[in-house]
């Protein structure tokens, strides 16, 4: 790679063979069933899907499982059995055992290949058993890893109520977040505070985040007098946000392009295209963009960002001037690379499973701007990478850190390359100002670990042992 010497003017996009390792998108079940507390996820697939879920999700299955496999057997594949009757039998069993507020059917490669008509069956069965059934086709033929969440949220967009309930009290009941934020305060105070928001069309945020992060981001916007009317997903299916035509929506995750499109096309919402609130730089840009759409001047943001950077300095100085290579796994790669370049790192290559240049436009622009401002070479963005080729490039480039899927971490470490599992960024709390430190905590861990080991020294270890 000659990237460093040529310094191209625009971002360079490539596409490789797609022989790369990532998780199956059905893994979204792992975090979504925890996020949506009254849900049940039914993955309709083969033993292979089940085995993956079982191993990838480890012990979680033992705690009161709110997901299960509908395992397709030979009779299902050869269409000897009636799909509808079979699914009805299983869903009735789920209703009896768990009584969830919603059953989410997760389609898989197999339901795609045998062309099982899940969307056709769901409404009928839903009417028959009296539990909403949402269909998401999160299969591995069309999607990678985190995009599974995208398919589920896109399906749920269609289920959001389209009218705010009339009674005012009821509305407040429904809005769990405002309730949370106003916890313990008197009605009058809350009312008074309502007026502290600027007058703007309702804003709904989408993307599944742990509850504390939801609160943090909601509060950050509140500081700018912007009110978040709801989140998709909410903590409970019964609390899906109201969506009316003309509402504004903004995503917090870079892998939600279908959800964004569904909001725009099906519900006639306006999408706020912003960089994603990852890292202090991204968070500030995200808030600024939302403010600008609602015509309000952000206040104190620059100070807030500076303050965060200052608190990060002890970590930043560990990585400044070092290089990071993304093999590509969870679609968070662009945002993370942008943040790390802002920290002073260089990044020769960003592998990414899928690149939606429209949905990620603002993020890509910020990446470019960041590189210019930091005097860093622009990375090559490799969509559908080829892991074998990447490993050859890694050998050549010897980056200081490789962010990679789990399959390659130990072999790379054995070859003297520092690695960090990409999947950790999927599960850690990385959004917003407060959590920027957690990203760096993860990124610097291999470097700090190695420093510790180096101080320990192999020779000392051996000699001291010999004395005993």
């Amino acid at each position: 790679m000659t990237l460093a010497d040529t310094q191209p003017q625009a971002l360079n996009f490539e596409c490789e063979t797609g022989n790369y390792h990532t998780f199956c998108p059905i893994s979204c079940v792992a975090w979504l069933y925890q996020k949506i507390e009254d849900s049940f996820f039914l993955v309709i697939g083969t033993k292979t899907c089940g085995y993956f879920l079982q191993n990838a999700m480890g012990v979680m299955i033992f705690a009161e499982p709110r997901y299960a496999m509908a395992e397709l057997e030979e009779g299902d594949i050869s269409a000897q059995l009636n799909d509808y009757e079979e699914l009805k039998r299983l869903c009735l069993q789920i209703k009896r055992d768990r009584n969830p507020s919603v059953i989410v059917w997760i389609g898989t490669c197999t339901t795609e290949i045998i062309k099982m008509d899940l969307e056709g069956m769901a409404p009928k069965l839903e009417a028959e058993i009296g539990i909403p059934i949402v269909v998401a086709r999160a299969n591995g033929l069309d999607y990678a890893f985190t995009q599974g969440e995208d398919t589920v949220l896109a399906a749920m967009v269609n289920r959001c109520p389209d009218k705010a309930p009339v009674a005012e009290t009821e509305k407040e009941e429904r809005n769990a977040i405002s309730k949370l934020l106003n916890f313990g305060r008197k009605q009058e105070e809350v009312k008074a505070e309502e007026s502290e928001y600027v007058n703007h069309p309702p804003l709904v945020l989408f993307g599944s985040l742990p509850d504390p992060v939801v609160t943090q981001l909601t509060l950050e916007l509140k500081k700018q007098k912007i009110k978040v009317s709801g989140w998709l997903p909410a903590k409970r299916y019964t609390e899906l946000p109201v969506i009316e035509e003309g509402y504004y929506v903004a995503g917090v995750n870079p892998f939600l392009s279908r959800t964004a499109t569904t909001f725009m096309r099906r519900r006639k919402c306006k999408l706020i295209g912003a960089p994603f609130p990852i890292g202090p730089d991204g968070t500030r840009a995200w808030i600024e963009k939302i403010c600008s759409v609602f015509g309000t001047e952000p206040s104190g943001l620059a100070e807030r960002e500076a303050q965060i950077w200052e608190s990060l300095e002890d970590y930043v100085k560990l990585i400044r001037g070092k290089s990071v290579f993304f093999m590509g796994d969870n679609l968070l790669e662009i945002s993370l690379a942008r943040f790390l370049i802002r920290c002073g790192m260089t990044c020769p290559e960003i592998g990414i499973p899928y690149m939606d240049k429209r949905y990620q436009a603002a993020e890509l622009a910020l990446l470019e701007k960041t590189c210019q401002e930091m005097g860093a070479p622009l990375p090559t963005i490799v969509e559908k990478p080829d892991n074998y080729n990447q490993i050859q490039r890694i050998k050549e480039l010897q980056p200081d850190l490789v962010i990679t899927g789990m399959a390659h971490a130990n072999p790379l470490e054995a070859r003297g390359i520092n690695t960090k599992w990409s999947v950790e960024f999927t599960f850690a709390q990385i959004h917003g100002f407060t959590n920027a430190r957690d990203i760096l905590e993860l990124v610097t861990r291999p470097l700090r670990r190695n420093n510790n080991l180096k101080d320990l020294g192999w020779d000392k270890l051996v000699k001291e042992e010999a004395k005993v």
Partner: protein
Amino acid sequence: MKLAYWMYAGPAHIGTLRIASSFKNVHAIMHAPLGDDYFNVMRSMLERERDFTPVTASIVDRNVLARGSQEKVVDNITRKDAEEHPDLIILTPTCTSSILQEDLQNFCDRAQLEARGDIMLADVNHYRVNELQAADRTLHQVIQYYIEKARKKGEMLEGKTEKPSVNIIGISTLGFHNNHDCTELKRLMADLGIEINEILPEGASVHNLKNLPRAWFNLVPYRELGMMAANYLQAEFGMPYVDITPMGVVETARCIRAIQKILNENGVDVNYEDYINEQTLYVSQAAWFSRSIDCQNLTGKKAVVYGDNTHAAAITKILSREMGIHVVWAGTYCKYDADWFREQVSEYCDEVLITDDHTQVGDAIARVEPAAIFGTQMERHVGKRLDIPCGVISAPIHIQNFPIGYKPFVGYEGTNQIVDLIYNSFTLGMEDHLLEIFGGHDTKEVVTKALTADTDMNWTKDAKAELNKVPGFVRGKVKRNTEKFARDRGITEITIEVMYAAKEAVGA
């Protein structure tokens, strides 16, 4: 369709990949959608493999579906052949891609025209067999392929090795304590003066497969992997095999005597009785330990055993014969080989359980309330919920089955390890309990005495609140006892009053 929460044995392609990646310089191409290549993660994470797992997924996506996969699969095979020069490339679909019903043999034939190494399609029915059966079959297939190839070329070596020798068949990657077992078996063979001819498949080279018949006999320590190969070698070359798992002092002795018999029949006069005696009495601490005062407390205690055929059978025998523990039931998830299991364990337990449905296993545990469980990771968790200690004795594998320290299950060191495991399982029950008091474990309460959630009990809001005030570690028990009390009296709704009545009646 069936509702599944948990699988004891993986899908077929996992078995094939375990064999392929155990061999040296063999590569597997998995014809599958993106999300199926979890095998690489397991191998890298559980075995802490330093090398890249020699498995490449040839990805099936929308495009491939539309255009047909032949070109892509053939490309990926020939590319890997050129990049890494493996001796053999094994192509396998997954149960998902096998639905496409493509002529994969034809893909292999096409690729073979260009490839330098050998190309083979794993001959496995992905819907009918599981991981274990597929592994057994693939190992057999690879051996047969190379023996036939050598025969055709006239490269088979005649005759036996000079000194008595053995092939150990069935050691593979991602096997339950396989690595340590293998070391222990090598030691045992060295003690017996037997040379190792080949170990299969772990670390073996396909070039050496033609030497297999030079060994005097085959040793198949695990029922699940290697039997097909051993039977094949017996049919083709009249090679005898020993399929007694040397686990526990009694079975280890039996295994050694079977080996002795084979050697004697082949004109070598060996007598291992002194060795067996010495090992049993002085090297292995197991026999003494079971007679020591520590173990008195275990006598007559109730236990249940569940796992794969090999381990469940062996542990049942050890508990019952060597430690005087009462095995109420012994079970296996190897349904396809149930007859063997029944024959092995029926005289050592009251009841035999053949199922791969974890809820049935859980219910069977809850029903007999044993003092200890010996099972898989799944039973360990069932035990957590029921407050019954569990020793893990069988796959499915877990990171804990790849310990850094030496922990074989077979041979004389294995007997020590197993006795420790058994003894600690019974006594550590109490300490585990303390852990839970301090919130170390999840304390999901059990709804009824059976684990399946078919409860018809209604708790009033107040009663539920009251129940939640009960400390976590006994809450499950209080709930169970209260519900049992109510059910026995035909009460369908549990109020605070019922709770206290139950408490007075049974001390819940």
